[in-house]
């Protein structure tokens, strides 16, 4: 997705946005944003009065300028929304294309056609052979195969799936590792996720999120208060008419009062509110995460506890060979050599890890397979072993090497009359107890020793968890391992808590327990047995590689199937709220300066000995040139600040994973105190320019 990233302002988007700024003037659309709608009504009212006075033969360039800037305020707010929308659309379009989809070999008559997984529908029939990823949930109608379901169960040992009976269901995203099966698709693919996501970045269909609704209420409430303030202000000023040489209808005209109202109501945040929401979803998509609702994204910012599966999330999904344990009388090199030979053509991660371990440990190089004249025996569901037969025709040493589970090798060795050492059995038991997986290697029907396959903690994961901790998020690791192994991995990965020997229902229980304590729970899952937990969690992120059930149950899908993606999701959620909060603070703080510009301007004539120099001129702290330029400067500042803050609304306020107090102090300083100061400077500059240009 990164490669498709657009600059902040793409030309095509800007062009479309400018057009949209005008089409969004439709009152029906404007009404969705009460603050901006109020500006539009004010602008309309002043325009009407302006035309009416024109008819009476009176023209005021000052009023015209104010009216123009009022309309600009509305247009700028529309523009902000349109830009965010345009960027969102561009993002979702490229998302559709860039998304790497699994393909399926669909059977049409007797022909096989390669189709994308998202084109498969209920009732289609596909063929899957060794190495194929099953494109969607379905039922085996023909054949038997071993399937790696580690993506859904977390269990790395392959399972048997065959037609008929209980073991006929296969899940999308799982991988056939031996044999061939024919599958009838039973679910429609989750392309609906994309549709839902797209609706989140288009304002027409966009539903407001809970916090956005609450904020809208606050902004509307403030707007109503300011409406009262402005209407009563005119009545108060009328009361002072006897003390003024100029009629109040002139220095506190409807147009000026509308200008004051527009300056006071929170137009900055009001105008940028939907842009912030849309661009939040857009940022999420740029991380390749699809959310089914805006609510979930907001909730992500609130997560207190994060539940993670060990396998695939904290550790690399597949086990890695970590040690060779030779039987008595067998040298380390011999078992290493045999293990490597048997794994040379084993393309599973475990197999490759054995080759690598042998190379690292004993300097055994991978050998040229064809040179060896070897015949490889692939793993099958029936034998549960793999290995190699070497029959050199030139009479070299004949070697029959097998590796597999302890039980399978034991049967194999004993049935062939070989011996299976008790010490090997002991070692196998030890390794199992410690949470690792033992593989036994046998050569010429003699058990050579045991390979330990161990979970390996992902690089960099510890730092990620430390980051989460700083954000105030507790991590809980869920694993089927025994407590001993779990403790070791938990310490290595730096998780805060773990549940060992967890059954699928334990996840659900843990989530309910934490929720009862009042915590918000995030969970990442991919398996069908995760589905209830994903549904129960406040934020459930399903891996795209996971099962359809999991994807339907969660409220987000990570297209990259990267479990640590949650950190980015949390950041996007937090940024979304922070940007709203910061701009609200900024918007309200701005009002102070606008008061000091407009109130002295409106009341300057009261008790004035000379023109426009009444006692309340003392409030003109900025020494603005004239009442007209003061009002106009404030309105202009109010309008252009919307445009100037569009980039911030689109990018979001910077988020650093630190404690709440630090973030609050920082944002308060920048947007609170900044919001107090900036307009004083801005309005003064505009006033100087307006006066220099002779516009007032």
């Amino acid at each position: 997705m990164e490669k498709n990233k657009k600059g902040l302002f793409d030309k095509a988007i800007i062009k479309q946005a400018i057009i949209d700024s005008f089409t969004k003037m439709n009152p029906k659309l404007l009404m969705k944003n009460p603050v901006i709608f109020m500006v539009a009504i004010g602008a309309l009212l002043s325009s009407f009065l302006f035309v009416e006075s024109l008819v009476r033969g009176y023209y005021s360039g000052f009023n015209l300028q104010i009216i123009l800037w009022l309309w600009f305020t509305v247009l700028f707010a529309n523009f902000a929304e349109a830009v965010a929308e345009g960027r969102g659309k561009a993002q979702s379009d490229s998302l559709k294309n860039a998304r790497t989809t699994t393909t399926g070999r669909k059977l049409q008559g007797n022909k096989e056609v390669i189709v994308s997984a998202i084109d498969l529908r209920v009732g289609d029939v596909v063929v899957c052979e060794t190495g194929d990823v099953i494109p969607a949930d379905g039922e085996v109608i023909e054949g038997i195969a071993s399937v790696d379901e580690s993506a859904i169960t977390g269990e790395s040992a392959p399972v048997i799936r065959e037609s008929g009976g209980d073991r006929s269901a296969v899940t999308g995203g799982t991988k056939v590792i031996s044999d061939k099966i024919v599958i009838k698709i039973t679910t429609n693919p989750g392309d609906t996720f994309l549709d839902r996501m797209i609706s989140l970045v288009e304002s027409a269909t966009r539903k407001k999120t809970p916090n956005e609704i609450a904020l809208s209420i606050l902004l509307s409430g403030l707007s109503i208060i300011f409406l009262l303030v402005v209407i009563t202000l005119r009545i108060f000023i009328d009361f002072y008419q006897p003390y003024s040489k100029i009629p109040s209808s002139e220095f506190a005209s409807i147009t000026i009062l509308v200008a004051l109202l527009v300056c006071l109501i929170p137009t900055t945040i009001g105008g940028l509110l939907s842009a912030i929401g849309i661009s939040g979803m857009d940022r999420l998509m740029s991380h390749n995460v699809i959310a089914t609702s805006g609510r979930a994204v907001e909730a992500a910012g609130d997560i207190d506890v994060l539940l993670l599966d060990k396998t695939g999330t904290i550790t690399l999904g597949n086990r890695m060979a970590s040690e060779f344990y030779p039987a008595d009388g067998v040298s380390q090199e011999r078992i290493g050599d045999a293990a490597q030979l048997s794994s040379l053509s084993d393309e599973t991660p475990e197999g490759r890890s054995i080759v690598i371990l042998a190379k690292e440990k004993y300097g055994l190089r991978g050998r040229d397979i064809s040179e060896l004249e070897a015949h490889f025996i692939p793993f099958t569901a029936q034998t549960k072993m793999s290995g190699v037969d070497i029959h050199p025709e030139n009479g070299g040493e004949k070697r029959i090497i097998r590796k597999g589970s302890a039980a399978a090798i034991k049967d194999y060795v004993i049935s062939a009359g070989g011996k299976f050492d008790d010490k090997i059995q002991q070692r196998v038991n030890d390794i199992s107890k410690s949470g690792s997986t033992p593989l036994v290697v046998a050569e010429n029907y003699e058990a050579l020793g045991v390979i330990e396959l161990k979970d390996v903690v992902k690089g960099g994961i510890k730092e990620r968890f430390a980051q989460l901790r700083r954000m105030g998020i507790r991590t809980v690791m869920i694993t089927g391992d025994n407590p001993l192994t779990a403790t070791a991995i938990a310490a290595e990965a730096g998780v805060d808590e773990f549940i060992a020997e967890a059954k699928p229902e334990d996840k659900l229980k843990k989530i309910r327990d934490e929720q009862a304590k009042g915590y918000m729970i995030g969970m990442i899952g991919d398996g069908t047995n995760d589905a209830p937990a994903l549904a129960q969690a406040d934020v459930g992120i399903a891996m795209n590689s996971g099962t359809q059930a999991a994807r339907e149950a969660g409220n987000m899908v990570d297209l990259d199937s990267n479990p640590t993606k949650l950190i980015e999701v949390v950041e996007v959620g937090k940024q979304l709220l922070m940007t709203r909060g910061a701009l609200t603070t900024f918007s309200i703080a701005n009002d102070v300066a606008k008061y000091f510009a407009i109130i002295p301007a409106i009341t300057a004539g009261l008790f004035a000995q000379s023109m426009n120099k009444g006692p309340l001129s003392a409030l003109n702290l900025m020494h603005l040139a004239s009442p007209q330029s003061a009002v106009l400067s404030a309105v202009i500042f109010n309008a252009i600040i919307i445009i100037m803050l569009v980039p911030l609304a689109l990018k979001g306020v910077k988020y650093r994973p630190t404690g709440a107090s630090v973030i609050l102090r920082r944002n308060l300083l920048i947007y609170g105190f900044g919001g107090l100061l900036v307009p004083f400077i801005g309005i003064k500059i505009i006033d100087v320019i307006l006066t220099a240009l002779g516009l007032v």
Partner: protein
Amino acid sequence: MFKFNDILQILAFFALLTLLSPLIGWYINLVFNRESRLPAFLTKIENYLIGFFKIDATAEMDWKTYCFSVLIFNFIGIVFLVLIQAFQQYLPLNPQKLPNVEIFLAINTAISFVTNTNWQSYAGETTLSYFVQMIGLTVQNFVSAATGIAVLFALTRGIVTRQGKSLGNFWNDLVKSVLYVLLPIAILFSVVIIGQGVVQTFTSYADVTTLEGAKQTIPLGPAASQIAIKQIGTNGGGFFNANSAFPFENPTPLTNFLYVLFLILIPSGLIFTYGKMVKSSKHAWMIYCVMLFLLAFGFFVSYASECSTNNVFHASGLMEGKETRFGVMNSVLYSTTTTAASNGSVNAMHSSLSPMAGFVAMTNMMLGEIIFGGVGSGLYGMIIFIILTVFIAGLMIGRTPEYLGKKIESFEVKWSILAVLAPSFVILVFSSIALITKSGTSSMLNSGPHGFSEVLYTFASAAGNNGSAFAGLNANTAFYNIMIGLGMLIGRYGVIVPILAIAGSLVKKKITPLSAGSLTTDNFIFSVLLFGIIIIVGALTFFPALSLGPLIEQLLMNSGVSF
């Protein structure tokens, strides 16, 4: 100029307040949450009362039931007060043979005392019989304060209860507040002030011949018992017209000091009760500090303004309208605390304050009576501002806003805004109506900014349920009695109903435990933000009005013009 003695006294006042408030708070918490430790004879009285009125004091009330109980109880209180005023001629304890009270005045007074406002469009000694004062007004002095405490506790229960429904029982809260909190303190306090010379008698007014040989009628009455509760219950309605400026109501410097202290003590103590109930005394201290800072700031602005030279008279420390016995500082301290704490009793005429001191008095009321404020109502009003602050601060740290573990969502925001809007509406709109109607302007004694301030002050006092008057405005007209009465109702119930609605919503919610990512509401940075929100929301709403009232008057005065 600042006087050394003045500074010493003000420091003593703040120190004593800071010392006594946690004690009062501890005691009230004992009453409500540690019932087993209450004296047996009082619990017997409590049980007898509850049995007598056949109330179910154990029934758990949801917010609607609680709200309905508050409203119906207050409504009955208003009707009863109206009736005994309208027929006082036929009732006992009327030695002066005072006539029945005119209906609009009676309604205004009834609303005024039931809403804990104690706005007085009448002069007590020439209008109301002892019966009305004692059976009517004094009783409401108690129960209106108790209503405030009850609503505050309902809200508190809403905050501390985990996924429940009940906000407690209004009748139980009411009886407990009166019996254990208000009555004991009031009885002790009245004994103390009787000792200082406040009158307490049923005899008729004394006719005396002065040294100059003139005839004078000296009003008497059962004053001390009413004065004690009017001070501690943030009621403020004086037994006599001159209120605490009258020697029989406020005889000595000691009573004056105690009045100022006690008018703020229970609202201040309740902060610490709240802290105990929400299990965060740090949070309570944060609230206390913000309130104390606002109070001290207001006082020093007022005091400095009184001490600076008046350009009309070329003098400072003007005594006109001040409490001449206790000096300018005590007048200003009284005016600041009584407007901050929604008490409304006065020892000086606020119309005579310097414009900036009047500015402070009005601002105290316009902010919604949240600087200590009324008994109960001050703190729940402040909690509205805390909720709004939490909302904005919560967004700024990137979390759904939480207050003490309860999520603040659109429902809470909606009702909070309504609670801010209701009093603001009264102040701005009712003042406007008064300014554009003949019946409104004809009552104004002064013209220009001072006349404007008279009206603005009146409706700020009504909306904030303060009850103090600026003086100068003849409020005993049908127009003002109705408008002020309506203003007091909106100012009181326009906040109580939202508060209970919020409590009803919060009580159902889970409590999110604190984590490093959650907002802390007990530290310095939060108090800065809270202070900022209060000042900015208040300033943005009332700055134009205030600048046309006291501010322009001050500026004009600086250039030598007066009204």
